[in-house]
């Protein structure tokens, strides 16, 4: 890979040990993918923040990296932590876990990262623009920002995104190049997608059956909005390795270029029902967990409108970012949800918090991503319902 004199110097240690390690990491990844050079990025999103996922090994590295003088060079946001950073005691998070979680976030803050603690950085005020190059980890956010905003990022790993944050650059390969962004399979959906669960099921179906293809999706009459598109990408990123999709006449790159695909398949309602069944188990959960990916302000409003109809008979936990949380608080949504017996938790989610340690064994959720990881990481049984159905279940108690 070609390096400028400045980049060479950083590799040799001109900006300290941490920057040299970060540069070495980017150059090595660039070499793997035959990248010709590094390009500047406008932001980085770092994954691997929860102590539950990175453990003592991750904590060790992040603290040592900070000690060696690592400092971010671009706007850097971070994934959800393993707990609400303020109200962790209320969540009954073990003391030892909480201390280590605080050490991880404070080491990242020392480097200059913003403690956003969310998987939805595209819902924050510093939203990337069309054509921006980014270094984002968090596969669901990569899906959204590539597909819906038309920015360009690969599906980075946690360490690579952190290295890009420090250097302010990423190797030029993959989705940064226009020729790698063209669709490779057509997906014609012959069913009306009504809610976020339908979109989540479709995403999961595409990722599972065509894990490395970039789909060009054709929808019949469907309810397209930010919430549903967020669910589509998160589902696809869970079962597939791709980081981009297109929707005919909808996503920005489809409006700029005419895409053509050789292979085209049809998806029907039965395909989506099969996915739903494969991710659901027979059980009657006491807990309803919503917010994978983190709830947007629109979802908070919807939930609060249901909440005013009466108290929940089941335990409802809503996960969101501290950013959306504070807007929801101002607008009164939080009070409405809390008054109905629900809880709103910031900075974390059902997947990366130690949910199994606080006695939650069965969960209703509206997200295929949450269903998959709850079962795989925490051995929690799940039932998939749309947000509307899940809240009805919570209100009726069955």
């Amino acid at each position, binding site marked *: 890979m070609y390096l400028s004199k400045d980049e060479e110097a950083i590799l040799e240690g001109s900006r300290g040990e941490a920057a040299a390690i970060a540069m070495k990491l980017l150059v090595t990844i660039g070499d*793997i993918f035959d990248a010709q050079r590094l390009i500047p990025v406008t932001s980085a999103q770092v994954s691997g923040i929860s102590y539950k996922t*990175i453990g003592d090994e991750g904590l060790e590295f992040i603290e040592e990296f900070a000690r060696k003088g690592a400092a971010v060079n671009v706007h850097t946001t971070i994934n959800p932590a393993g707990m609400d950073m303020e109200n962790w005691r209320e969540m009954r998070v073990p003391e030892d876990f909480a201390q280590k979680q605080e050490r991880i976030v404070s080491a990242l803050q020392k480097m200059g990262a913003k403690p956003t603690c969310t998987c939805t950085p595209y819902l924050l005020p510093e939203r990337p623009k069309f054509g921006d190059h980014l270094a984002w980890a968090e596969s669901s956010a990569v899906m959204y920002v590539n597909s819906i905003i038309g920015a360009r990022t690969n599906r980075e790993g946690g360490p690579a995104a952190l290295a890009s944050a420090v250097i302010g650059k990423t190797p030029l390969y993959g989705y940064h190049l226009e020729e790698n962004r063209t669709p490779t399979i057509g997906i014609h959906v012959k069913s009306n997608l009504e809610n976020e669960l339908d979109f989540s099921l479709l995403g999961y179906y595409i990722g599972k059956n065509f894990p490395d293809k970039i789909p060009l999706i054709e929808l019949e009459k469907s309810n397209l909005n930010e919430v549903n598109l967020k669910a589509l990408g998160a589902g696809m990123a869970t079962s597939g390795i791709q980081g981009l999709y297109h929707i005919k006449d909808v996503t920005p790159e489809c409006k700029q270029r005419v895409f053509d695909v050789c292979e085209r398949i049809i998806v029907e309602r039965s395909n989506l029902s099969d996915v739903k069944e494969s991710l659901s188990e027979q059980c009657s959960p006491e807990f309803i967990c919503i917010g994978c990916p983190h709830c947007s302000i629109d979802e908070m409003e919807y939930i609060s409108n249901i909440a005013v109809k009466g108290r929940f008979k089941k335990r409802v936990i809503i996960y969101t970012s501290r950013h959306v949380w504070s807007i929801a608080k101002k607008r009164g949504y939080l009070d409405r949800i809390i008054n109905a017996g629900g809880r709103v938790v910031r900075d974390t989610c059902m997947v990366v918090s130690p949910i199994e340690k606080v006695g939650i064994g069965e969960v209703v959720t509206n997200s295929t991503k949450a269903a998959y990881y709850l079962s795989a990481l925490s051995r929690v049984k799940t039932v998939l319902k749309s947000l509307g159905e899940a809240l009805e279940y919570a209100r009726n108690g069955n």
Partner: protein
Amino acid sequence: MEIKLRGRGLVRGIVEGEALVSSQPISFLGGVDPATGIIKERGHELEGYTVTDKVLVFPHSKGSTVSSYVLFSMARRGTKPLGIVNTVSDPIVAAGCVLGNIPLLDKLEIDPTKAIITGDYLTLNATEGFLVIRRSQISNVW
């Protein structure tokens, strides 16, 4: 007998040692105990083997990017492999080798998981990009 193969050096360094070969991908997160260096993934063909101070040969890694931190941690605890040879490396193992200072070589002229057998004595030169395999017993693999 001795054979020299050219490859792509990704993380520089020169090491010599015994080979431990897996035809299956390895997940360092959950698959290897960083305290002991023992492969603990159930049903893995190397389950129970120790990677410490071996030249570890496998196709590529699998699983979470947290695996990179596990290799870093193994380096700090002194349980890391001497070096790694992959069929084709991926960003997870490469990042781990950078953080743990473990020489890494891939894309050899022959698939290393087929050319090398556990117990072969290897010289891994990731600085210049080659691997020397020495085998004491006569074998029909070559």
